[in-house]
């Protein structure tokens, strides 16, 4: 478990260092995600297999409980009660409409491409 979380944190750390030098065009954790994917893809044979197995276990545990990680940030809504009191309806409409349209466009493009490929 310590090994697994250490691997993930080290990849995040390298990602943050790169993000600093590219002025945060892509955030550090995302670079870390791309790096761990590349590291796993170029890895050959048994090289570092145990640390990566541990990291895989830790990643499963984290991703199975992903929802709880959003709770502290979500509670941050209490700091924006003034914006919600004034513009709550507009804010909610923006989020709702944009999310519905995004869902429809995404699912439609996915299925249309799949159908074109099959034809």
């Amino acid at each position, binding site marked *: 478990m310590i090994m697994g979380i250490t691997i993930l944190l080290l990849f995040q750390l390298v990602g943050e260092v790169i993000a600093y030098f590219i002025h945060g065009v892509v955030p550090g*954790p995302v670079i870390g995600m791309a790096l761990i994917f590349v590291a796993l893809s170029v890895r050959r044979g048994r090289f570092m297999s145990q640390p990566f197995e541990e990291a*895989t276990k830790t*990643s499963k545990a984290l991703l199975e409980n992903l*929802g709880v990680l959003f709770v*502290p940030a*979500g509670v941050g809504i209490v700091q924006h009660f003034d914006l919600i009191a004034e513009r709550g309806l507009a804010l909610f409409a923006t989020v709702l409409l*944009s*999310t519905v349209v995004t*869902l429809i466009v995404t699912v439609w493009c996915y299925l249309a491409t799949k159908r074109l490929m099959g034809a």
Partner: protein
Amino acid sequence: MSEGLWVYLSTSPLLWLSGTLFVWIVAIGIARALPANPLLNPVLLSVSAIVCLLSVFHIRYESYFAGAQFIHFLLGPATVALGIPLYEKLFLVRANLLPMVVALFAGSLTAVATTLFLGHVFAFDQTVIASLAPKSATAAVAMAISSGLHGDPALTAAVVIMTGVCGAVIVTPLMNAMKIRDYSARGFAVGLASHGIGTARAYSVDPVAGLFSGLAMGLNAIATSLIVHLFL
């Protein structure tokens, strides 16, 4: 005496760290007991319960966050962790590569463009619009993008959660109404629009939907961080 206890407990992160986890476990229990109702989303339930507790006891967000930050911090390694299933399911990714690339590009662009458009329609100021723009990306990423755009990361965090809950609540009725039965497509859409909260919902509906949702969340984190620079 009770006031002394509050002061004593507020000096340590223990109260709100354990409080957040306990509320979450109760919320998960409620959501699992009544899976048919998408409004009983565990994130929505937990956030509402804690917001009520903070309001009733007049506790400032800063003191809450002093404890809860240890949970929040794990969003970073959890984002890195997304690279592992991406690698493990590479064969599924390869088989659906073209639909995913097209849907990713179209969906990510739609998410940012509709938000900016509606933001201007409703005449929000520039800081609010910059804070809203990355709302479909996962929280850690969206907050980093928002601060890069001179938005308010705290507002972004709240809007990201709203977007996540919103997508997780409407995806099942919407897709059923559209008569879409392809769970890879349904999962990909909800992961792209509603990141981790959508992915948690997708896993509770169907494992294939969950996988594609996780993929879409990871890919959209990258896509959004690039696409926002086209507009802002």
